[in-house]
C-alpha cells in the first residue's frame, strides 16, 4: 500500500522551487486575461523574492526527500540562492528593454521562473535522471527565450541554433547516463561512489564511455571548447536581457552539476584531471584569442564567457575541497560582474537604433559619465584588476592550482588574463578616448535598472575589497551528502 503521508512530509525540501513554479503558473494564468496582464511582472518579481527568502531560510540545513531523489545539501541550497538572485536581476534588467523593443509579453517572466526551477532541480539532486529532467526543464524555456524577438531574424536564428545544439547535447548526455547505468545498474551518484572500484573493475570500459559522453553533453551547455561553436551566435542573436540570463544562470547551473558529477560522483577516475587540464587550457585560450577579433560587444562578451568557463575548469583539474569552493566563488563573482556588464549593454541598447557595436560606445564618457564609470568597473572586474571581485576570484582559483602543484596551469591562466586585457580595455578606450562627430545619444535610466547597476557595482567593489563574507559562503557550500 502506498503511504501518501510520507510523501507529503517531503515538500519542505523543495519549498523555494515550488514557490517559483506556482509563481510561473500564476503568471501564465494571469497573462491570458487582458485586465490582469499588467500584474504579471509584479507577481513574478514577488514570487521570486518569496522564493529567495525561502532559499535563504533553508541555507545551512541538510535535507533529503522524495526517496533520495532530492538532496538539498549546503552546496545545493547555496546554488538555489544564486539562481534565484540571477532570475530576479534578469527580470529587473528585462522589464524596460522588452517594452522598448515591443516584445514585452507576460510569458517571458513565466519562462524565466520555470527555467530557474529547472536549474534548482538539477543542482539539488544526486540522481542522474533528475539531473537530466532538470536540465531539460531549464533548457526548453531558454530555447524559447532565445527566439523571443520573433520579428528579428537574428533572434530566430539564435533560437533554432540553440534548440538544435541543445537537443544534440541532450542526446549525448542521455547516452552517457545510459552507459553509466548499464555499467553500474544505478543512476544515483551516491551508490556509484560507494561501489566505484567494483564497478570500474567489472565494467570499466562502459563506465568510461558513459562519463566521456556525459562530459560532452554538459560541455555543450557550459560552452566548453571544442563544443562552444553555438555560443557567439546565440549570445548575439538573443534579446540582450536573455543573453545576460544565459551567461549567468544556465552557466552556473551547468557548473553546479558538473562539480557534483566530476568532483563527487566520478572523482575516482584519475585520468579526468589531465583531461580537464587540456580542456581548461583550450577553453581559456580559444575564448580569449577569438574575443580579440570581435567588433560587437555582445559577441565579445560571448567569447569572454567561454574564456571564463575555462578559468573555472581549472578547478576540475585541480580537484579537492579548496578548488571546489574556488569554483563556486568564481561562479558567483562572474555572475555578479557579468550581469552588471550586460545591464550596461541593455541600457545602451534601449537607445534607438543601437546594435551594441563597439563604435556606438564612442563619446559615452561625455554623454553619460556615471554609466561609463560603472562600465569601467565591470570591465576591470572581467579583466581581473584589483580591487574588484574579479581579481580576488582569479587569485583564489590560481592560488589553489599552484598549491596543488598545477603551476603551469596557473601560469597559462595568468597569461590568458593578460591577453584579455587587450579586448576588455578596448571598451574603455572607445568610450573614453575615441572622438565622435555628433554627441552620443544619452540613456534613460529606470529605477529597476539603476537598482541592478547599484547592486552589481556594490557587489563587484564591495566583495572585492572585503571578500571574507562571500568566501565563507563559498567554503560552507561544499558537498555534504546524506
Amino acid at each position: 500500500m502506498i503511504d501518501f503521508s510520507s510523501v507529503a512530509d517531503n515538500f519542505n525540501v523543495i519549498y523555494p522551487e515550488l514557490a517559483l513554479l506556482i509563481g510561473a503558473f500564476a503568471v501564465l494564468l494571469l497573462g491570458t486575461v487582458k485586465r490582469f496582464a499588467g500584474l504579471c511582472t509584479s507577481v513574478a518579481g514577488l514570487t521570486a523574492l518569496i522564493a529567495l527568502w525561502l532559499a535563504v531560510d533553508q541555507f545551512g540545513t541538510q535535507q533529503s526527500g522524495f526517496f533520495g531523489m532530492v538532496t538539498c545539501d549546503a552546496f545545493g541550497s547555496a546554488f538555489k540562492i544564486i539562481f534565484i538572485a540571477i532570475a530576479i536581476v534578469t527580470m529587473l534588467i528585462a522589464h524596460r528593454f522588452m517594452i522598448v523593443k515591443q516584445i514585452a509579453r507576460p510569458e517571458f517572466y513565466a519562462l524565466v521562473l520555470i527555467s530557474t526551477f529547472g536549474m534548482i532541480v538539477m543542482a539539488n539532486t544526486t540522481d542522474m535522471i533528475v539531473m537530466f529532467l532538470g536540465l531539460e526543464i531549464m533548457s526548453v524555456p531558454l530555447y524559447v527565450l532565445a527566439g523571443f524577438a520573433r520579428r528579428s531574424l537574428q533572434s530566430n536564428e539564435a533560437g533554432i541554433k540553440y534548440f538544435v545544439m541543445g537537443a544534440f547535447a541532450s542526446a549525448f548526455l542521455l547516452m552517457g547516463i545510459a552507459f553509466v547505468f548499464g555499467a553500474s545498474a544505478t543512476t544515483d551518484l551516491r551508490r556509484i561512489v560507494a561501489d566505484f572500484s567494483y564497478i570500474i573493475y567489472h565494467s570499466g570500459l562502459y563506465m568510461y564511455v558513459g562519463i566521456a559522453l556525459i562530459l560532452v553533453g554538459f560541455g555543450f551547455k557550459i560552452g566548453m571548447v571544442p563544443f562552444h561553436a553555438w555560443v557567439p551566435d546565440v549570445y548575439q542573436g538573443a534579446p540582450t536581457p536573455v543573453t545576460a540570463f544565459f551567461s549567468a544562470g544556465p552557466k552556473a547551473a551547468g557548473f553546479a552539476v558538473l562539480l557534483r558529477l566530476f568532483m563527487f560522483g566520478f572523482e575516482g577516475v584519475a585520468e579526468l584531471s589531465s583531461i580537464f587540464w587540456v580542456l581548461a587550457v583550450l577553453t581559456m585560450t580559444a575564448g580569449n584569442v577569438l574575443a580579440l577579433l570581435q567588433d560587437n560587444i555582445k559577441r565579445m562578451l560571448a567569447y569572454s564567457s567561454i574564456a571564463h568557463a575555462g578559468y573555472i575548469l581549472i578547478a576540475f583539474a585541480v580537484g579537492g575541497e579548496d578548488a571546489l569552493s574556488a569554483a563556486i566563488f568564481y561562479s558567483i563573482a562572474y555572475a555578479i560582474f557579468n550581469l552588471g556588464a550586460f545591464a550596461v549593454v541593455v541600457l545602451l541598447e534601449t537607445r534607438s537604433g543601437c546594435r551594441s557595436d563597439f563604435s556606438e560606445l564612442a563619446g559615452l564618457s561625455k554623454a553619460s559619465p556615471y554609466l561609463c564609470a560603472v562600465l569601467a568597473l565591470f570591465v576591470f572586474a572581467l579583466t581581473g584588476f584589483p580591487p574588484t571581485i574579479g581579481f580576488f576570484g582569479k587569485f583564489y582559483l590560481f592560488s589553489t592550482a599552484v598549491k596543488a602543484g598545477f603551476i603551469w596551469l596557473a601560469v597559462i591562466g595568468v597569461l590568458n588574463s593578460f591577453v584579455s586585457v587587450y579586448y576588455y580595455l578596448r571598451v574603455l578606450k572607445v568610450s573614453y578616448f575615441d572622438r565622435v562627430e555628433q554627441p552620443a545619444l544619452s540613456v534613460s535610466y529606470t529605477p529597476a535598472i539603476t537598482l541592478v547597476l547599484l547592486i552589481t557595482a556594490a557587489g563587484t567593489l564591495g566583495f572585492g575589497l572585503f571578500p571574507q563574507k562571500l568566501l565563507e559562503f563559498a567554503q560552507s557550500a561544499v558537498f555534504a551528502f546524506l
Partner: protein
Amino acid sequence: MTLDLVIFLISSVVAVFGATMMITQRNPIASVLFMILSLLAQAVLYIQLGALFMGAVLVIVYAGAILVLFLFVIMLLNLRGRESLGQPSPPISLTVKYALAVLFVLELIMVVKSSFSSDVFADAGNPGVMVMQTDNFGAVNDVAVLLFQRYLYPFELTSILLLVAIVGAVILAQRSRDDDGPVDAASSGESEGKAAE
C-alpha cells in the same frame, strides 16, 4: 505443443508479418493499419511474458492513441494513393545501408545467443547485471509502486517539462495581433467572428 507455444507462434508470426507489410506498402493508410496489427500482436507477446501493464499500454497508447493520430494526420494532409519512391539512392548510401543491416543482424544473433546461455545471470551480485526482481514483474502494481514512490519526483518533473514545452511552442507559434500589421488583424477578427457564430 502447449497452448502457450501455439499462441506465441501465431502472435509472433503476425507481428513480423505486420511489420514487414508496414514497410512494403506504398499506401500510407495501409502502412499504419499494418503497424497497428503488428503492435497488437506484440501486446499479446508482452502479456504472455507476464508484463500485463506493458501489453495494455501498447494497445491503449500506441495502437489506440498515437497511430490513430497518425491516421488523422495522413487524412488531413490528404496523402491519397501511392507515394513515389523518389530518386534511386547513390551506391555509397546503399553500401552503408547494407553494412548497417548486416551489423544489426549480427547484433541480433549475439543478443539471442547470449540470452540462451545462462552466464548472463550467473553473477547476480555484480552491479553491472540487471536481474528480474519478482516473478511477475511488470504488473500494474509493480509499475505503480515504482512510479508513485521511488520515481514520484522525476515522474512529476516530466509533467512540468511537457507543460513548458507546450507553453513554449504556443508562444513561438502564436500569431499576435500587433505582429503582422493591419492585414493580419482583419483576418484574425474575421476568424473570431466565425468562432462566435
